[in-house]
């Protein structure tokens, strides 16, 4: 293990200065925040970083993702506090399209901002932070007493073939943007700011959203060519968001207005899928491939005819993905999905494309995901074509007000 290190004086000064400026800029924005999932400024606009909830959850899903899970190298609570303070300031700067830091024009000093987004727009960048269960198991941090009862490592689930190097993590950063370079820049600069305190454990690029989180967005297709997330919770449905996504009075207090994030790296066996007949593909999912309508229907947003039968057989097969994932078959439980398609080159041992879905879901309690995945993992016809190879769970604290920092309720 590395001994404790300190963050340099320059960074402390920089954060103090910029933090003060941010208070001025964000005035009045705290409660208004970014609750509205507006996709009207798609591609260019900026999404407020500060607010009641963290951005990147109920805000409209952008096209690109760079996700990173970090291991904490230090067990000094003061260092973790300082890290979250600096990360908050940097994430807020990046979200407005500004350069990170203030030492960027000294010829003999390395610029604080790495520079690859100079001249690019904010591109709706959102940066979302979460804390993994392992963070609460570090004695030096003294956080055990504040650990939410809900934050237990996900249990082994049917169909898991998890690689430890692609799972877990003490802290996560989800950076989403309509420009992949903007998302990458956010993660890269946060990793650099955290050097010596955190190290990247694993990271994932996502190249296309596979879910809509707003009514203003069309339903995208995943790499199987299927519309994914038709029945997703939409941010406009604030009752559903409050009921299924945001932590409420059940607490702990520092999580109120926060949520729990599950990530699953799901490898798709695309070669096998591509050889399945159109009818098999549609029966596997339970939807028509091109319209996205439930089997037997003609409109994407028609309710699922779960009880309909034809010739004595259910129209939606018992093992169809949409049936097993539906709220009706899961005691009403729903989750907010916000995943991305990925590809990471070639599986060298198979000579096949390494590609799939980086599944992200937000829910008020991790059990919502666990219950659904228990059924899917053991019964879903889709299992023939997918493998869950990475998994992580994070407690996502509420948003920060201007001048505060994400996680302040936990760490202060």
């Amino acid at each position, binding site marked *: 293990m*590395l*001994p404790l*290190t*300190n963050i*340099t*004086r*320059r960074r402390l000064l920089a954060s103090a200065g910029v933090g003060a400026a941010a208070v001025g800029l964000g005035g009045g924005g705290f409660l208004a925040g970014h609750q509205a999932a507006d996709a009207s400024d798609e591609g260019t606009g900026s999404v407020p970083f500060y607010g009641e909830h963290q951005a990147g959850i109920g805000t409209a899903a952008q096209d690109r993702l760079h996700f990173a899970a970090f291991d904490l*190298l230090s067990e000094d609570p003061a260092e973790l506090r300082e890290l979250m303070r600096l990360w908050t300031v940097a994430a807020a700067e990046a979200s407005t399209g500004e350069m990170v830091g203030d*030492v960027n*024009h*000294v*010829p*003999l*000093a*390395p610029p604080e901002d790495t520079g690859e987004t100079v001249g690019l727009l904010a591109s709706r960048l959102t940066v979302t932070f979460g804390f993994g269960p392992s963070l609460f198991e570090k004695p030096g941090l003294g956080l055990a007493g504040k650990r939410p009862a809900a934050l237990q490592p996900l249990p082994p689930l049917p169909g898991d073939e998890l690689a430890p190097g692609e799972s877990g993590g003490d802290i996560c950063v989800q950076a989403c943007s309509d420009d992949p370079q903007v998302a990458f820049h956010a993660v890269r600069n946060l990793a*650099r700011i955290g*050097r*010596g305190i955190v*190290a990247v454990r694993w990271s994932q690029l996502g190249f296309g959203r596979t879910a809509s989180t707003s009514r203003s967005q069309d339903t995208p297709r995943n790499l199987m060519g299927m519309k994914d997330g038709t029945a997703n919770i939409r941010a406009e449905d604030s009752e559903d968001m409050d009921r299924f996504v945001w932590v409420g009075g059940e607490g702990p207090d520092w999580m109120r207005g926060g949520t729990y994030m599950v990530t699953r790296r799901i490898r798709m066996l695309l070669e096998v899928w591509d050889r399945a007949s159109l009818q098999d593909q549609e029966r596997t999912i339970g939807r028509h491939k091109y319209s996205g309508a439930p089997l037997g229907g003609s409109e994407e947003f028609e309710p699922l005819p779960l009880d309909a039968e034809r010739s004595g057989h259910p129209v939606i097969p018992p093992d169809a993905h949409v049936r097993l994932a539906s709220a009706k078959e899961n005691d009403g439980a729903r989750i907010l999905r916000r995943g991305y398609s990925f590809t990471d080159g070639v599986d060298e041992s198979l000579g096949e494309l390494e590609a799939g879905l980086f599944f992200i879901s937000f829910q008020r309690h991790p059990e919502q995901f666990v219950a659904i995945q228990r059924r899917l993992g053991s019964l879903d016809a889709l299992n023939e074509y997918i493998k869950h190879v990475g998994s992580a769970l994070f407690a996502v604290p509420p948003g920060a007000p201007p001048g505060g920092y994400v996680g302040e309720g936990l760490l202060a």
Partner: protein
Amino acid sequence: MHRNLVRTLLCLGAFGLLTLTAAACGSSDETTTIEGEVEGQTSPRVEAVIAEYRDYLQQNADELVATTEPFVAAVVAGNLVEAKELYVAPRIPYERIEPVADSFGSLDPRIDARETDVAAGDFEGFHRIEKALWEEGTTKGMAPVAEQLERDVEALAEKVKGVELQPVQIAEGANGLLGEVSASKITGEEERYSHIDLVDFEANVEGSEAAFEAVKPLLDESNADLSGEIEADFKMVFNSLEPYRTADGFVSYTELTKADTKELAVAIDTLAEKLSQVPAEIASSEHS
């Protein structure tokens, strides 16, 4: 290779150590000009910094010559076993002062190029002989290469005597040495036949620390906190190497796991991020 240091040296050379214009060096589109200290008006504290580091350079250049001689003799005599034993000793002083050697044009590639750094016919120096000893298992054909190596390290030691340095360059050399660790030692590319990469790793860090210690009095004036953190981080990096130390050096690079190299790389990155702030800090200190 130390492109940054070379560029800095070239710029300083062109401006006669008087004025370093960032724009002219292509490092920035700003028009900021850094006033360097005028040669001949160097303050005693800056002179002390330069003198300390020049001593270090000279000691290591002398050690390089002294340890290369017996190595070359063993290669010329065709003594494979002895040559492999004696290969390690000259690598250490060389790796401690490599950025300076790098500034003398063709000497560094002649002495230290890896096979993939140069055109096919130009592969010579330490690593050509390393390849013969470990991969080909022979000294055959290496006598002229070894003799040329000896002449080159002697030429290097001679040039070191006249080298002109300023504190900012010394501090940039400290960064450059850690860049070497990140680029080729932690990856096992430098000593790809003998796998003594951790020996080079330690020598690079020792050289970096010596350069840092030389400029430290200047940094103490401008940013004592940073200075203290860097000192602690050097200790942390040396400590992270300890598990791999053996009676006569270090374990082979091939024995390291991915987790081992990750921990070493994280330690280096932690130190290097802070060390990279030193040139700008001492530039301000020199003028305060």
